């Protein structure tokens, strides 16, 4: 690890100010992505600004039309929250299958979304649930937030303060783990809004990061059942291909995981 200066921010404003002061600042939340990268000398921030102790950034708040998860809330807290389990069971389940217990105790929703690893779990939920990402500057709808592999709409120094999830009629998540990393080799989140709108998002599949799956959305809009997807074709073109999963295998997984997510959603 290269030398760096650590700041523990006491508020969002404090964090933003500290960030602006540093030459090459980075926010730190759970550190589950940033710290390993720093330890391998692949990142050398001059200043590290810790968001994880900011009171306003921790917690889960039921709202009029859904649920709001503050930006530095850990995966563990989301998985264990009875509010989330009740309102959006698919989301609580998703948080419970991220990494391992140590990762879940520290890793945060804001860190995961800001990082936007193509194999991460949260982006699929945020996209399928049509959530809104709240920052210290604005609100960003899910459809505008994810910009490809490890890229988001966030500007330099912008802090995810919360993510707001609208109420949902049905939600389900099915993850096929990469056998080595246990990230998503391919995972699918299915959601149906109270008005019947179906949104389906797949993680770990596409070369351009988390994606919505139109063919599956339309099949499920007509018929919300696993069997409705029996003959849906998911194209392998544009899919990731690596030693763990070829493109055609991932295309198959998108369909099969979508079926299992529908079954999980009930």
């Amino acid at each position, binding site marked *: 690890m290269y030398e760096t200066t650590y700041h523990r921010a006491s508020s969002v404003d404090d964090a933003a100010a500290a960030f602006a002061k540093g030459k090459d600042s980075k926010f730190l939340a759970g550190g589950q992505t940033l710290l390993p990268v720093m330890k391998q000398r692949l990142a050398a921030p001059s200043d590290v600004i810790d968001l994880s102790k900011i009171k306003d950034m921790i917690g889960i708040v039921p709202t009029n039309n859904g649920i709001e998860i503050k930006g530095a809330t850990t995966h563990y807290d989301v998985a264990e929250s009875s509010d989330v389990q009740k309102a959006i069971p698919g989301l609580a389940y998703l948080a419970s299958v991220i990494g391992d217990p140590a990762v879940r105790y520290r890793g945060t929703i804001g860190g995961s979304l800001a990082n936007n690893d193509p194999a991460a779990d949260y982006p699929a939920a945020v996209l399928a649930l049509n959530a809104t990402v709240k920052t210290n500057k604005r609100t960003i709808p899910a459809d505008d937030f994810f910009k490809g592999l490890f890229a988001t709409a966030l500007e330099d120094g912008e802090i995810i303060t919360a993510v707001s999830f609208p109420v949902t009629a049905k939600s389900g998540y099915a993850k096929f783990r990469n*056998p*080595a990393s246990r990230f998503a080799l391919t995972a699918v989140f299915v959601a149906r809004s109270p008005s019947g709108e179906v949104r389906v998002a797949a993680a770990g599949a596409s070369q351009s990061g988390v994606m919505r799956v139109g063919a599956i959305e339309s099949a499920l809009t007509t018929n919300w059942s696993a069997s409705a997807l029996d003959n849906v074709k998911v194209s392998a073109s544009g899919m990731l291909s690596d030693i763990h999963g070829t493109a055609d295998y991932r295309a198959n997984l998108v369909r099969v995981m979508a079926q299992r997510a529908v079954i999980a959603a009930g």
Partner: protein
Amino acid sequence: MGVEGIGASVVRKEDRRFITGKGRYVDDVKLVGMTYAHFIRSPHAHAKVKGIDSSAALKMPGVVAVLTGQQIVDDKVGNLICGWAITSKDGSPMKMGAWPAMAPETVRFVGQAVAVVIADTKNLAKDAAEAVVVDYEELPAVADVRSAIKPGAVQLHPEAPGNIIYDWHIGDEAATKDAFSKAANVVTLELTNNRLVPNAMEPRAAVADYDAAEEHYTLWTTSQNPHVARLVLSAFYNIAPEHKLRVIAPDVGGGFGSKIYIYPEEMVALWASKKVGRPVKWTGDRSEAFLTDAHGRDHISKAEMAFDKDNKILGLRVKTHANFGAYMSLFSSAVPTYLYATLLSGQYVIPAIYAEVVAVYTNTTPVDAYRGAGRPEASYLLERMMETAARQLKVDPAELRKTNFITQFPYQTPVIMAYDIGNFHASIDAAMKAIDYAGFPARKAKAKADGKLRGIGLSCYIEACGIAPSKAVGSLGAGVGLWESAEIRVNPVGTIEVLTGTHSHGQGHETAFAQIISERLGVPISQVSIVHGDTDKVQFGMGTYGSRSIAVGGAAIVKAMEKVEAKAKKIAAHALEASESDIVIENGEFKVTGTDKSIALPMVALAAYTAHNLPDGMEPGLKETAFYDPTNFTFPAGAYICELEVDPGTGKTSFVNFVAADDFGRLINPMIVEGQVHGGLAQGIGQALLEGVVYDGTGQLVTASFMDYSMPRADDLPSFKLSHTTTLCPGNPLGVKGCGEAGAIGASAAVINAITDAIGNNKLEMPATPDRVWHAIHG
């Protein structure tokens, strides 16, 4: 059996220190004035080193030195050696390319060191390493055997034309040809034995300390065999003479073979400690372990088996290409020859066998022995062959095996080995019963109704442990003897120290060896301590690998004990005024049979050391040494059966059951044996389902971290059902055979046989990832 004697599942004495963080590993050693080494490693699989500019680095704060490959050559440090000479078919010796500890001219695999930075702290050494500029001229690379042996392929070493190290054979070619000409059926099989990274929990490390006043070196190192390290460092690498070099292998966190070898980093640390005049520490990180710890396996084989009309095996023909990586590691040459092809008879009567092995250089990490070393490759090939044959011949795979089992012992195979004893029917029957083999078709049908593909797979392995005798291995090319030594010191107060030349790095010797003493003397194991891993303390020994510690090292302990007991009985008889032949040892007492006269061990020991009243002419003291050279290998064997389900939608396998019936001879501590089997099975299953090294076409290691190299985790594994069928080994005084590698040797074939049974397609390579299995199902 006493409560702590042979056969008791005593809790491991060493675990208190391990599980409370009190183990003392190499990286825990801290010396005054210690410096830290960081190696500069090649990012290319094949390149010329045209220049190294360390001027900027040398100006940085805290930098003590930057040492290069050229300096190590200039100082006449010897090249790395290979300790087993193999002769090709045509009578020519193996073709070994030079391997300097740091490359002065040419790098041949990604991660090979070209220079080392020595600095006051680890971080400063890393900073300075980034400032060293190495000028490489990239060369074309070959990363796999098939490309390496193509005509016109880039050549790695001028000594080895065509990148071929040797082209060796064993068995009777003519007799095998004849057997095939009489065959009613011939079964063929092509397969790959995937390359593995050992991944011991503790990475390799070294602390080297040169004492200029005494001209003496001390090396703390993560070694499975510190005496061999000392021998090689002095006799071949010319760094320090043996009497001026102390090698200490303290607590070591796993080895699996990868810590047998004396690696460049340990050599360089030792050499550098004299050069810089301060102690040097190097602790490898996980990335370095992936790149530089000797890898395991990596065979491509073609096999054919001939059967008569009654399904009796007539002959076996095997051709194997073994990938050695860029250099010949210490025992690499023996692994695909005498540790592999000699096991190709398996548990079967095979009248004629002919095997050819071609050893090939590639621009990859060197390959050497890894848990099982050659025997997993043999067992995997043979047991997949038996399953393939059963399907082709349309007979039950268990029946086909039983039809061909060896039942008469001793049995001389056509490939050197003389099996001393075994009962293969007993182990397969026990395994079949444990898994309810007969009930499988009904379970398969039920699984099918649930949309799952269920399969069952067998693997009947035999292996050879305690590689020996020294005379025989010497005649086959080994550069060392393979005996073991023990010294037993009974202290004046009757406590006992056992010095062994084996090394424990997770095996539990401190407990199991103490149990042997407890059994013989009737003393609690708390009275016994096991000393190992320090060349200044222990007489010469050969270390731990090939499941040799109990079969060879344990036998040496028994031999030394016999001497101690003989002397102690004389002392006791003298003290009790009895005849020596009337003395028996019970519960720590020396008794005169049939009387109530006795003397306790501490009193005998005290008498030996006070020497006030010893029999005439007896030397004082109670301390004996024995060197034990076995008469043969030992032959653990067993039957594993795996039942699993495949999810046709994803290709993912889930275990239903995994049973193991092993014959390890006498068990000293069944709990430790169980742990060894669990670990071995985990590694065998890991190879079958998860682990596999991948290089890209340019020789870059793709699976260079745990993000891509899939290690088995607890939830990847079933709850094993273990049992034992025992035939006592007639070749050693304990009747033991060794259990350290069996699981890794037998498990992978059982798993793959079960998957191919489930999916109805035999074309499947390891690791059988969900992707591969799904493609095997769906094309």
